[in-house]
């Protein structure tokens, strides 16, 4: 069913955990449907300096979360925000068809975390009378 790479990420996921003082947090899914993903990012110079995740979901959900964190770590926000669910699945060597739409949400979580960071920056900027990164 799952590729070897999916199983590796499921068994030994990278970047598991919580960043207590995260600059952005993305949370998507809902437990009724069976998949919940939390993505925490630290941003420095518009780059993702650190990222961690927690996932409730099937093997694919855990593996996509794990590889997505690897794919964005060190990337600029502009690059990271363009990560697509499709690219994540491809990086894993593909996912079973029935897993494609329900458990392949990591890129969405990344985007949510970046959005969260940006809107916080905007809030800060607004408060400080400065604009956040455009």
């Amino acid at each position: 069913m799952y590729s070897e790479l999916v199983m590796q990420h499921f068994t030994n996921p990278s970047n598991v955990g919580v960043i207590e003082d995260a600059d952005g947090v993305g949370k998507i899914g809902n437990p009724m449907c069976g998949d919940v993903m939390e993505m925490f990012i630290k941003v420095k110079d518009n780059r993702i300096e650190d990222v961690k995740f927690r996932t409730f979901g099937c093997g694919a959900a855990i593996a996509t979360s794990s590889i997505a964190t690897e794919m964005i770590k060190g990337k600029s926000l502009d690059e990271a925000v363009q990560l697509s669910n499709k690219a994540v699945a491809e990086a894993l060597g593909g996912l079973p068809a029935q897993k494609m739409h329900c458990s392949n949400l990591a890129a969405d979580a990344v985007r949510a975390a970046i959005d969260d960071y940006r809107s916080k920056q905007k809030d800060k900027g607004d408060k400080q009378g400065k604009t956040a990164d455009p």
Partner: protein
Amino acid sequence: MSERRVIYLDHAATTRVDPRVVEAMLPYFTERYGNASAIYSLGREARQALDQARAGVAEVFNCSPKEIVFTSCGTESDNLAIRGVAWMNRERGDHIITSSIEHHAVSHTCEQLEKQFGFNVTYVPVDEYGRVDPGDVEKATTDGTVLISIMYANNEVGTIEPISEIGEIARNYGIPFHTDAVQAAGSLSLDVQELNVDLLTLSSHKFYGPKGVGVLYVREGLGLMPVQTGGGHENDLRSGTENVPYIVGLAKALTLVEERREEESQRLAALRDHLTDGVLSSIPHSRLMGHPSERLPNNANFVFEHVEGEGILLSLDMQGIAASSGSACSTGSAGPSHVLLAMGVQPSVAHGSVRMTLGRENTEEDVDRVLGVLPGIVERLRALSPLYAG
């Protein structure tokens, strides 16, 4: 992964074919390969094998061989029972009663009758243990009720339903009563007279026979419209050249499990209790699903809160342990089990269900190995889970 023997704990999904069953089938592939409808000796041999198989199954069911219809699987038997009775009685009524925890072979067939053929279906509820209340079935009956179909034992949580009582009600109202007994074979009595049933479904691969052959018991005098039409085989109820090897295999397998049914059920129930006690005592936030006592001897179904079942299964598989999460159907739907939901379990909790169904080859050692690895697996996945407060 190490080369040690796989611990197979998914006997509700399917079973290993008994080597004695394989042996019984083998001659019918390359030696006695005749078409049972043919007049020459190869054909007559095949016919005799079918007759014997039919008689063997009838003995276990305590019925007449004429009342046995061989089909291609449990799903087909369920379809034939439900669609066959429904179509036959369209003029008389359009109402069917079933439960909310049936296998999809029953529930999706009822739904098709609703959506495509204008029937009305009442899905009677179950309690938190998955039990149907016979009183609810009685209340649901109307003048237009043409069929009641309630399963004998649930495939996910193992709960045993009060079939004989429901059967009595059905008889009082003169309504044909079908039971899906697929999970009961080898564990519970299949005496159709005691059970008060008019139609009963079995599937061979759940009791150490091959996949792809089933039986439907049809009480004499009950009218069914065939759902697979053709050469008129099986008393015109199920056309298609008879699968002689598998029918022989089904009968052999059924006879073999029936012989050791009571001893084996006791042995499995003791093993199952050992498993249940071990899991519940060593893993916090775990619960047993299904009825505490009125359940199949080999079924244990747990939910582990805050984790998803699939991750547990994958982790168990890496340890050489085969278990399942709810029904082993291939819908690929990610929704939580309709059985657990009908029992009132929260969807988020239902996602964490793991079913372990024991069988003939399982030993106490197997159970101990599961108990050795399962707590660690659940712990690791909980550490990954945003729902777990720790």
